[in-house]
C-alpha cells in the first residue's frame, strides 16, 4: 500500500497552505513556520532513500519558485529527506516495522514527537542559518527554535488528520 493518490493530493495541499496561508501570515519575525516539511515527515515508512531524495528535491524546488529563494528550500528539504531514515532509527527504532505511515499504531506519540522535532529543527536550522549567513546569531537561533515549535505542533495536527483520512 503506497497510497500514491493520497500523497499527491497531500503534496498539493501542503504547497498551497504554505504559499497562500503561512507565507502571508506575517506573525512575528521570530515565528516563520515552514509548514510544508510535514510532508516529508509523513512520507511512507518504507519509502526508499532514492524515492525520499527525489520527492524532497521536488518539494524544495516547488517551494523555491513559490518563495523566490532560488535553492534555499531545496538545500534544506533534500537534506532532511535524505537524513530521514537516520532520524527514524534514532526516534522510533523497530516500532515502525508494521506501520505504513510514520504516525499512530505501534508508534508512541513521544517517539513521533522526537522524530518530527529532529526533522523540523534540522530543516529550520539549515534554512534560517543559510538565509542569515551567520549575521545576528542569537536572533537566528531564536527564530529556529520558535519557528520549529510552531511547525512541530502543526505537523502533529496534520499527522492526526492525515492518518484519519487515509486509513
Amino acid at each position, binding site marked *: 500500500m503506497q497510497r500514491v493518490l493520497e500523497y499527491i493530493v497531500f503534496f498539493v495541499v501542503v504547497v498551497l497552505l504554505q*504559499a*497562500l496561508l503561512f*507565507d*502571508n501570515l*506575517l506573525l*512575528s*519575525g521570530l515565528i*516563520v513556520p515552514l509548514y510544508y516539511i510535514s510532508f516529508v515527515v509523513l512520507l511512507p515508512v518504507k519509502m526508499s*532513500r*532514492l524515492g525520499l*531524495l527525489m520527492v524532497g*528535491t521536488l518539494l*524544495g524546488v516547488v517551494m*523555491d*519558485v*513559490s*518563495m*523566490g*529563494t*532560488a*535553492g*534555499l528550500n*531545496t*538545500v534544506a528539504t*533534500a*537534506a532532511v529527506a*535524505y537524513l530521514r531514515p537516520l532520524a527514524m532509527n534514532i526516534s522510533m527504532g523497530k516500532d515502525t516495522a508494521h506501520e505504513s505511515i510514520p504516525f499512530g499504531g505501534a508508534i508512541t506519540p513521544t517517539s513521533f514527537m522526537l522524530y518530527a522535532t529532529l526533522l523540523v529543527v534540522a530543516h529550520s536550522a539549515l534554512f534560517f542559518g*543559510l*538565509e*542569515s549567513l551567520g*549575521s*545576528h546569531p542569537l*536572533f537566528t537561533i531564536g527564530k529556529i527554535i520558535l519557528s520549529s515549535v510552531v511547525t512541530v505542533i502543526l505537523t502533529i495536527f496534520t499527522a492526526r488528520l492525515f492518518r484519519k483520512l487515509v486509513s
Partner: protein
Amino acid sequence: MNKLLIFLKRIAVPTLFILVEVLALGSYMRSTSFTRARLLTVANGVTGGVNERFSAVGDYFGLRKENRMLSARIVELEAQLAEWVEDPERVHIATDEFAPYLYGEARVIRNSVFSQHNFFTINKGLRDDVEANMAVLTPEGYVAGYVIDCSERFAVCMSVANRDFTMGGKGAHNEHMGSLSWDGRNFHRVHLENIPHYANFSPGDTIVSTVSYRFPPDRIIGIVEEFEPSEDKMNSHLAVRLAADLSKLDRVLLVKFMDGEEYDTLHSKYTTKY
C-alpha cells in the same frame, strides 16, 4: 565486476544527494535579488490570482481607516494647491516645465517582511505600463520600495526591508546625505551610513529621499532614532525608524521618473552603479 556493481549501487544515492545539494547551494549563492524576483514573478502566474482575491477580502476591514487617511491627504494637497493658485506667476512657471514624474496606483497582494530578502507583489504589470525601477510609496507618500520585475498582470517590488536594497537619504533640515540600507533584522528600522562626520542629527529629525533614477526627491523615509557620531572623524551612522509600516502595505503609489534612464546613463558613466 559484481563487487563493482554493488559498490556503485551503494554510492549512487549519496552521490545523487551531494549533487542535488551542490546544485541547489550554488544556485542560491549565485542568486541576486533580480533572480529571486524572477522566480516570484513565475509563481505569481499560478498563485497571483488567488492572492489578489484574498487581499480583496481583507480590504473591507480597513475601509474606515483608509477613508480617514484619504481625507487628511486631500486636505494637505488642497492646502498646497491653494498656495499655487494664489500665485499665478508660479502656476505659469509650473505649466511651462515638463512634469518629470508620472504617478499611478496599485494594490499589494502579497507581502513578506520576515525574510532577509523581502519582496512584495502588486496587482499591476506590463499591461498597465508598470516597469522596473518605478518607485513605490505608501498613500501618505512614504518610501516603501521599488519595482524590480514585471509580468503581464503583476509586478514584484523590492521592499526597503531587503538586504539588497539601497537608496540615498538625507536630513530634511540639513541636506546632508548618506546611503540607506537594511541589516536584515527589524523591518521598522533602517540604517543611514556614510554621513559626513560634521553633519549634526538628533533623534526625531526627518530623513527624506535624495534624487535618484528611482525615487523622487524629498519623500519621507523615516525619523532618526539614534545618532552615532563617528569616533574616527570619518563617517557617522544613523538608525532610522521607517515611516511606512511595511507589514501593512495595501494601496501604494507608483512613481515613474520620466528622465530616469537618461539620468542613470549619464550618472553611471562616472560612478560605480549601486
